[in-house]
């Protein structure tokens, strides 16, 4: 510990940290990890905080502070693989004369994110052959490529020569079954993005497909995952152990992400905001300033980033994940009680 003999030591004691050394990640010397810590609900409620940093329909960044990594990780894992979403699962191919093979075409269609809110649907029973209006969405894709009749003279661009030479996800048409038309609006079930290229075609090529979307979870197939990715990182912390000035300060600044280190009017470097540092640890490359910094990360401060695929907003996905964890816990407790 003598290595980090710094004035900010007192601050260091408060938060659990992991130190990013030059060649490895190291826990603080008398920190034996969360496994040894006693869980106290009181302490937890006092410390635990959620701060939403930014959010829009597709992406959200929020902080989870004062929680064990097992929980944070559980949420991450649940969002990736157990929060359900709708995706095209079955493709009935009535006609496919394009150059894309049937299986590949079906695979591509499966990966198209759908807007349909999975909370409004049920899982389809394993042995059911016919879908119902509660568990199935049906679409069709019927495209035929033809020569463009109103040809622009001397143009050899395919978009001028042919009609429908590119098949996009926007061409997928929804066919409501049962009462679906009154429950859902067309705009709420179709593909999230209309510009996903499915296939390229030439005159004579034709697609006539019947698509069936069902509800599923990410651990079954990645297409059911509601997030592009959901992950977290620990809050970085940079502490300067000595004064760094002049050219060294400039150098120090370049070693971190922009905005992390600032230089004051005296030419002295100071840590402005370590949050958005990417922890590249490039300071260790320079012997002259290597000793001036201690890089660490706060072990119980998780900065989550959830990127939704589009069906649900990221906050919903997170709360769904929490619900799943809750249900799992309940389930476990019930099981234990029956013992």
């Amino acid at each position, binding site marked *: 510990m003598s290595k980090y003999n710094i004035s900010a030591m007192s601050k260091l004691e408060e938060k659990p940290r992991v130190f990013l050394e030059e060649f490895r990640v190291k826990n603080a010397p008398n920190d034996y990890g969360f496994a040894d810590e006693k869980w106290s609900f009181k302490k937890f409620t006092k410390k635990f905080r959620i701060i939403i940093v930014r959010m829009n329909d597709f992406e959200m960044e929020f902080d989870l502070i004062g929680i064990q990594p097992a929980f*944070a*990780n559980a949420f991450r894992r649940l969002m990736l*693989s157990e929060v359900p979403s709708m995706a095209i699962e079955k493709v009935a191919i009535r006609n496919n004369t394009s150059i894309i*093979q049937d299986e590949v075409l079906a695979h591509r269609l499966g990966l198209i994110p759908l807007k349909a809110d999975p909370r409004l649907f049920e899982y389809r029973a394993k042995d059911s052959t016919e879908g119902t209006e509660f568990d199935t969405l049906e679409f069709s894709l019927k495209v035929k490529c033809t020569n463009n009749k109103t040809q622009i003279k001397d143009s050899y661009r395919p978009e001028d020569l042919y009609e429908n030479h590119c098949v996009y996800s926007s061409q997928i048409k929804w066919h409501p079954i049962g009462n679906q038309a009154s429950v859902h609006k067309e705009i709420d079930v179709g593909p999230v993005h209309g510009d996903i290229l499915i296939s390229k075609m030439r005159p004579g090529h034709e697609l006539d497909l019947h698509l069936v979307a069902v509800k599923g979870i990410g651990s079954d197939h990645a297409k059911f995952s509601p997030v592009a990715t959901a992950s977290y990182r620990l809050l970085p912390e940079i502490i300067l152990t000595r004064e760094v000035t002049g050219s060294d300060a400039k150098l120090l600044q370049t070693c971190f992400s922009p905005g992390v280190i600032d230089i004051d009017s005296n030419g002295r470097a100071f840590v402005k905001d370590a949050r958005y540092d990417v922890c590249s640890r*490039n300071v260790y490359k320079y012997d002259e300033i290597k000793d001036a910094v201690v890089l660490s990360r706060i072990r119980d401060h998780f900065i989550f980033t959830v*990127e939704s695929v589009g069906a649900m907003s990221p906050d919903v996905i997170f709360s769904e994940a929490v619900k799943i964890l809750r249900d799992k816990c309940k389930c476990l407790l019930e099981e234990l009680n029956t013992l």
Partner: protein
Amino acid sequence: MGELNMKNKEWESTKGLREPIKAIEDKWKLVPSFLQVKGLVKQHIDSFNYFINVEIKKIVQANEKVFCDADPLFYIKYLNAYVGTPDLEEGFNVTKPTTPHECRLRDMTYSAPITVDIEYIRGNQRVIKNKQLIGRMPLMLRSSNCVLTNKSDFELAQLNECPHDPGGYFIIRGQEKVILIQEQLSRNRMIVDEFKGAIQCQVTSSTHEKKTRTNVIVKNGKYVLRHNALSDDIPIAVAFKAMGICSDQEIMQLIGSDDNTVKKMAPCIMDCHNLKIFTQNQALAYIGSKLKVKRFQTVNSKCRTPVDEARDLLATTILAHVTVENYNFYVKAIYLAIMVKRVIEAESNKAAIDDPDYYGNKRLELAGSLLSLMFEDLFKRFNWELKSIAEKIIPKVKAAPFDVVKHMRPDLIANGLFAAISTGNWTIKRFKMERHGVTQVLSRLSYISALGMMTRVNSQFEKTRKVSGPRSLQPSQWGMLCPSDTPEGEGCGLVKNLALMTHITTECSEDPIARLACNAGVEDVRLLGGEEINHPAVYIVFLNGNILGVSRQYKRLIRVFRMFRRRGLISAFVSIYPNHNQRTVYICSDGGRLCRPYIIVEKGCPLVQQIHINELNRGIRKFQDFLTDGLIEYLDVNEENDSHIATVEAEIDPYVTTHLEIEPFTILGVCAGLVPYPHHNQSPRNTYQCAMGKQAMGTIGYNQKNRIDTLMYNLVYPQCPMVKTKTIELTNFDKLPAGQNATVAVMSYSGYDIEDALILNQASIDRGYGRCLVYKSAKTTMKRYSNQTSDRICGPSRDASTGKVIRAHDLLDADGIAAPGEMVENRQVLINKQMPIATLTPVPQGQPQQVEYKEVPITYKGAVESYIEKVMVSSNSEDALLIKILLRQTRVPEIGDKFSSRHGQKGVTGLIVQQEDMPFNDRGICPDMIMNPHGFPSRMTVGKTIELLAGKAGLMEGKFHYGTAFGGSKVTDVCKELEKHGYNYHGKDIFYSGLTGELLEAYIYSGPVYYQKLKHMVQDKMHARARGPRAVLTRQPTEGRSRDGGLRLGEMERDCLIGYGASMLLMERLMLASDAFSADICGACGRLASRAWCHACRSSAAVSTVDMPYACKLLFQELASMNIVPKLTLKKYS
């Protein structure tokens, strides 16, 4: 290196000689320019073009007249020969132009007619007939007569051909065949070697008529001439006397009159005196007595004396390539003298022994020269057949005069050529040549494997022999043959591959060269005596192994020749080089020499300047212009050895350097060129990658969807590698890639990654990583039989009771052929074909309905179902109906599938992990693949680590980095780029465990690496069996996966069980689980009894049943059939 540069600079400044030579920017652009002219398989195409346009005419001219013994007036004279354009024969004398793709699909041969203009005698008239068909020539794709030459990409697409397909192969009966480049020792050259301790000088002479080998060897301290046509060795002095050099002094003057030579020759001369041979006639008589007795004496030879025969032999067979006119042997005697001189020299100076592995002594035979040998043989046979027909028919009196044209059958030459190419057996009777495996089926596993095959060089050495000499890398292979690309195992070092810029010469005419040499001061040797020839100031000049003359100013001669060549006044591929030890100058214009272009350096300055390259960039200068302007020239291996070649500009020494390398990465071949940073890898790793690149699946050509191959592997989403090389761009690998960029984390995970196993991310697989398509085809023809019956296809059969189509026939359409798009399961019928039971006995007339048929359906075999991609119905060359069905499978990576990076690091999938279990980094990136770091220390594939780094930096910049050999993006630059984008400069990132969610203690090296999916997949290999089929003869389980065979408990396993003493287990495994059989044995006589009755004892009293292996019973019966009676002694088991 830095130090060296410093020194150089110091030296320069002190001497003040010159400015340091600036490196020419973009000099490498000469390489694509070169390849644009020549293409990647130029050697094959050039050679074939030379054959069909020039050599075939020469061959026909050399055999232009056919006479007939029956009629002295009769003759046929060939005036000219042509090879036409590719067509197909459709019916009698009706042809239609064809395309290679049609031939591939319809199992036809891509060939063109060979026509000749002839003049012959019909009756008493002289008739000239033009365009007479005499055979068909298989055409090489993209050769001068092929429909694909000089076509634009659009036109090629219309012909269903891939614009990147290199051509250079043949299509015989629908199969793509390559004639491999054959390497052999050069002919008509003296080669001094040591054979069993004795020095010998060997010459393999080869002319159009003959191929013979002549040796001068040391035997008991004397020099003798050895030849196959002679039963005994001839003392060298006798040979000289037989050639008309009768005086001993003359002999000595020819060989050399220095003391050493005289001393060594003295016993030989004495020998000759002892034999009492003093005149030419005596010598010829002596040789005549040593002739091998001919088995078949022709009419001519009977009336000839041994002296005549010996003289003839000397003139035409011994050293056949030295032509003798009017029995004037003088030139041949000089040649022989030089051979003796070489032997004498080598005896005292071991350095004078030639290295047979030296590449200057090698010649490469290509498709053209091999085909010309085959064609000449067939043409001679064709003429001989015409002659014998003429001899048979002319004496008969006929109404119409004998017209030889009616007897010209084109089948002989056509089928001969087709059969040779399709089997690869090259049998040439007149040279007693019999070679196997000359051709191979073009491997279409990936684009690179096809390309790699076109550059392959096969050597004539036996593969089983354990010799190191011919296998090891020869310094003279530098730049000509790829140092990395060779197979492992038996073919190691014997099968080689051409480097990127290698060109193989085709023959060019000798006459103008000989004339030029004379003008440049070469004196004819026939006018000179031995003393003058051997004068120390004089260099002997050879042209293609023949003595041309002597020159007193050899330097001037060489300078003049090179100047003429650079001016383009003689062929660019003529090479001239001196040998100072032998005091000779060699001029070569023969075919099959390896050569490669170099930039000429004069007075320490490369002639190619920046302006030239700028002009090249602007497209106003082509590679040919560099040649014609004398800026670049081709050097063959021998001339290369006489030059000082600098690899980079900095190495140029103004006093000695003569040439500059165009670009160092061209020393590698096509396959090794795929490896990024190969100069950072341990050398065998590059060799491994060369072998594995050929097994990688990806794309094989733009026309892959139109092909119906028996087996084809495609990747669903192939990618261009993040780290490219110049070679990748030159070979168009970036347009026809075979692999995907996987984000790799180098760490250990779960223990399922030991022994090079890889961990894959399930989500990556779900999103399409490593997904591949496997195409297989089923094929059948409807044959017609001699008894007017033929095969037929029937519609689906129906179940008699229910009336439903039976399951096996579910897929069939009404026409009896499975429909496209259907799913095919194991044992389902694809084509419901039936065949008549009797195909030979003629069907009784009037009742054709009564033909009986048996079912021979084409069924699908395979545990995993396939889909029918397409069905082709056509007819083949025999006009039979041809049906091909293309079947498709889409395969997703599974545990056990093989992957490999481009650094010879292969591994199988050990575990597929859910995305949430994978480690992730600060940016939320999960790797696609985890690789164990233990793969690095022992393999030393530093190139792979650099590829990862450069790939990662490239992703950030949005550009491709280059890992070109001996160049490419520098690690420091790449690291700086990474740093710029906020990544660690080491390429190591902070990762969190996906399982615990905590930080991993180590920083993980991660980034994109190009991974190839190899064709070895578990689905094709997995096999297990409980019960199953048995072999008929032995009743033991069958062998092999394809026959659903058993798993053998082998000898070693058996030994273990014996050692352990597990006798009951042994009994069960070896007998009960295999071929247990209850045999009846007669206890009285000990012989096998049949059905509890002993035939020998005529009783059943002592017969008891014994369990034994069926193989044992079989052995007893087999022995009995050979009159050996094995007897068993039975005892009561207590």
